[in-house]
């Protein structure tokens, strides 16, 4: 398959264009998605190509953005609702947690909710406490939601295609820092399956399990560690629900050491969950306790020095792996 290098933003945009062209039941709605072409330009060109009927600007009203996506899905459409950021989606958590996640179950499996809620999250742009959060843990905690966190342009495209085709509510968490990141993306249609982690760097000494932006940092750390003769395997989970523990356990059984890295807060985070599952299912294979490296439990500060300190950086990962491998 021939490749070309495009940005994460354009990869997402391609997925939307292709799926809207393929399936007339797909529509996009959200704040600034049509005329303005998205606060982050992910919906560029959609209005011109598909028109007002399928590309809909909404008021600044997150609850009804999410709720109308749920209703539209129950009525036979495949809506993709954009949240300008996941921080704002917290206003829609009643719809997401109390409704999207539960409707199928509480109605005895009589209805499907094929909808996607997508948008950026995460820190790193000095946007301070209310614009820099990572919400994946809150979502992954709740049964009934699929949770996707792509780290590369190819996955951004392939996972968004899969999300749109999926019959469950999919929470699609892009990383704000990654929109301009470039990477190779195959030409034409790609669909990356859910629940399949990617081993993005092979190694035999330590397994680093991570996702989203932290994958890029872990890769840099792994390259640096190679120079010291420490071979870290880096696993990008790609989807948190469903979670590919098979891949994690297989790697840990090989390396006998595991570090889980996440940007968000530590308490009850994905890192805690994965660490718990590793010790439940691969305790005898471990040569050291599973380590977590997470964001600090603090609202995100504005100051750039403090902000950098609040989330894991490449040297932090390197240092953790060295300690683990020692």
């Amino acid at each position, binding site marked *: 398959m021939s490749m070309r290098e495009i940005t994460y933003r354009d990869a997402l945009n391609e997925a939307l264009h292709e799926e809207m062209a393929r399936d007339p039941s797909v529509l996009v709605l959200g704040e600034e998605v049509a005329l303005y072409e998205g606060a982050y330009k992910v919906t560029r060109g959609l209005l011109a190509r598909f028109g007002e009927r399928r590309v809909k600007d909404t008021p600044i009203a997150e609850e*009804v953005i999410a709720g109308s996506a749920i209703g539209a899905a129950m009525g036979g459409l495949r809506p993709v609702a954009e949240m300008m950021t996941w921080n704002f989606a917290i206003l829609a958590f009643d719809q997401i947690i109390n409704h999207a996640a539960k409707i199928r179950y509480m109605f005895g499996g009589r209805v499907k909710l094929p909808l996607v809620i997508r948008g950026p999250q995460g820190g790193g742009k000095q946007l301070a406490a209310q614009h820099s959060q990572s919400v994946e843990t809150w979502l992954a905690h709740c049964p009934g939601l699929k949770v996707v966190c792509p780290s590369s342009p190819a996955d951004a495209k392939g996972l968004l295609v899969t999300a749109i085709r999926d*019959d469950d509510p999919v929470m699609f968490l892009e990383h704000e820092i990654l929109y301009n990141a470039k990477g190779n993306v195959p030409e034409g249609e790609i669909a990356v399956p859910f629940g399949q982690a990617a081993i993005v760097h092979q190694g035999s000494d330590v397994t680093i399990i991570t996702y989203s932006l932290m994958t890029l940092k872990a890769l840099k750390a792994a390259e640096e560690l190679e120079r010291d003769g420490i071979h870290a395997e880096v696993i990008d989970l790609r989807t948190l629900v469903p979670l590919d523990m098979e891949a994690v356990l297989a790697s840990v059984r090989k390396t006998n050491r595991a570090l889980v890295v996440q940007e968000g807060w530590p308490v009850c985070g994905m890192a805690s969950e994965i660490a718990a599952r590793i010790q439940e299912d691969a305790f005898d294979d471990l040569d050291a306790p599973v380590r977590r490296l997470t964001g600090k439990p603090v609202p995100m500060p504005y100051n750039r020095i403090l902000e950098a300190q609040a989330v894991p950086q490449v040297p932090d990962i390197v240092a953790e792996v060295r300690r683990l491998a020692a």
Partner: protein
Amino acid sequence: MTIRHEERPVLTPHNLDETELLGLFRRMALLREFEERTAEQYARGRIWGFCHLYTGQEAVAVGAVSALTREDYVVTAYRDHGQAIAKGIDPKRVMAELFGKRTGTSLGRGGSMHLFDREVNFMGGYAIVGGHLPIATGLALAVQYREEDRIVATFFGDGAVAEGAFHESLNLAQLWQLPVVFVLENNLYGMGTAVERASATRDFHPRAEAYGIPGEAVDGMDVLAVREAVTRARDRALDGKGPSFLEMKTYRFRPHSMSDPGRYRTRGEVDIWRQRDPLRTFPERLIEEEVATREQIDVILGEVEEEVRECIAFAEESPHPEPADLMRFVWAADEPEGEDGP
């Protein structure tokens, strides 16, 4: 209040024949009997959880749904037995759901507050106040998008009007001219709090007008007035003229739920509203205007008693869900095939 008592429609202009008028009475009588027997079953410990009875408000669900087709969607709150049965769900399956049985509308997963039946386009009872209004709005978006010949009618209580979801939904519905009828059942109390203790205004329909949506007050104790108002609102929606808002002035005779002692209102107030009980006033009118005889009314009352007895027997005899099926239906991949029910 702007209830139009003086304009109370006479029976004939509704183009309803005797059978149809008696049909409205029969449905209201069925809801009343269903709820009274539900209260007994609750007291006997066969129904658990929160259970909100519809007693007193029957004219709203029956009148409104009589103006809809089977294809029209209904989305409602947690006081949902009335709309569900009026919309055409087999009351046996409603009672089975209250009993938590696998023959219930939601296979025992939902209970009283979460009835559902896609076959009759009853798209659910929801238990977060106002939370279903965005969903009703989205269903109307799907109807508009797919150019379907149907509308959405969504029911909610006066408590929901204070929620942000209500305002977001009305604004978007009008902005996009969606085919939805907002049916407010103003029974004067949000749980135990009187409207005047929770709302800056007594009437709610002017709020719809603030969004450019025509709003009107309707005598919610008069099944024909409700039917007529919903018919007009439905026609507007089908004509592409967008949403309407109907404030049904109604009253629940029983407490908020089965766990509410109801000490926040006086016996006298309840008695005054009971004078307007649609189960009393409507058959009186039918007899007065020689549409039906007392004997015909009594036959119907006997029939619905028998029907509800059968509902209870069905619910009692039905099996519980399989413990092994606890995790089913979290995901779309779990299909309900193999379960009982349709």
